[in-house]
């Protein structure tokens, strides 16, 4: 077993363990962290495939930004939305899920055997030295893929406009609801007068 295959197995274990945690975890924050583990594992596999730029983007954008967005959503919903749904799933759903997973595994195994059989072994074209490096990706991006690159800004713009429209900022502020109470309201039921630091705290001094 070479170092390369040990590395591959480590990444694969990280991916699968993270995916399992994402699905199984009772606490949604743990699920988001499981997703993070999967994303880092996939980034490691990109490195093994000589796609260094893709690996870096995977860590910067997915691990750095997308998982943060997920965690933000969980924090916005608060603890109320985190209770595990009760009640068992129907047998039909269980059977359908099992068949679906079995079909995916069988198809993947079939394709893997097809691609990596002895007949095709060694028939892949060799890659150039700087394949997947940041520079070669940039060369493609700013010459051949210029139009998609500029069009991707449209996607980013739409996401920003959508987010602002959903969050409805700029509307006039509504009365204090449990959502936008200050911590002083939450804990003391109203604004708190600053305490005179020169006076010692006694039993009947107000907060």
């Amino acid at each position, binding site marked *: 077993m070479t170092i390369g295959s040990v590395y591959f197995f480590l990444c694969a274990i990280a991916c699968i363990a993270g995916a399992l945690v994402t699905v199984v975890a009772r606490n949604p924050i743990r699920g988001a962290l499981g997703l993070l583990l999967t994303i880092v594992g996939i980034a490691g596999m990109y490195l093994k495939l000589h796609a260094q730029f893709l690996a870096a983007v995977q860590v910067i*954008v997915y691990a*750095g*930004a997308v998982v943060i967005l997920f965690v933000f959503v969980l924090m916005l919903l608060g603890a109320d939305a985190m209770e595990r749904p009760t009640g068992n799933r129907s047998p039909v759903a269980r059977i359908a899920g099992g068949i679906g997973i079995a079909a995916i595994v069988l198809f993947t195994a079939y394709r893997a055997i097809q691609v990596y059989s002895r007949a095709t072994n060694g028939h892949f074209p060799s890659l150039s030295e700087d394949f997947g490096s940041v520079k070669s990706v940039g060369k493609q991006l700013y010459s051949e893929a210029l139009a998609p690159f500029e069009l991707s*800004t449209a996607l980013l*713009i739409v996401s*920003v406009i959508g987010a602002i429209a959903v969050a409805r900022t700029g509307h006039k502020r509504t009365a204090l609801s449990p959502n936008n109470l200050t911590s002083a309201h939450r804990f003391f039921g109203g604004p708190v007068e600053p305490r005179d630091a020169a006076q010692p705290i006694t039993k009947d001094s107000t907060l």
Partner: protein
Amino acid sequence: MNQAWISTLVFLVVSAVLAASVMIAARILGVASKRRTKLTLTTYECGEEPEGPAWLKFHPRYYVVALVFVLFDVEAVFLFTWALILPDLGMLAIVDMFLFIGILLLGWVFALSKGALRWQ
């Protein structure tokens, strides 16, 4: 394996050891109570009695800030490739990137004009 990947490996190992050593040191040096009472499991709040749930709802305005962050994060990713390719492509790359940043700036101006980045 070339030299660059060995330094990457060393970096990963050192960061993992650093993170693990802090947790192991806390486990060895920390004083833990033998009995697990209800008080042991409460949140430590600097001597104050903990009040209210720890899991508060956050205001959605944080989400807008996070989304605007993602926008500029993606922009930064494209800047990495651009910086490396700049000497080869020259003027074309400069025009490309200023078009790209110009369009994204429209989104930023929209966010500013809607007050999305203002802390009300």
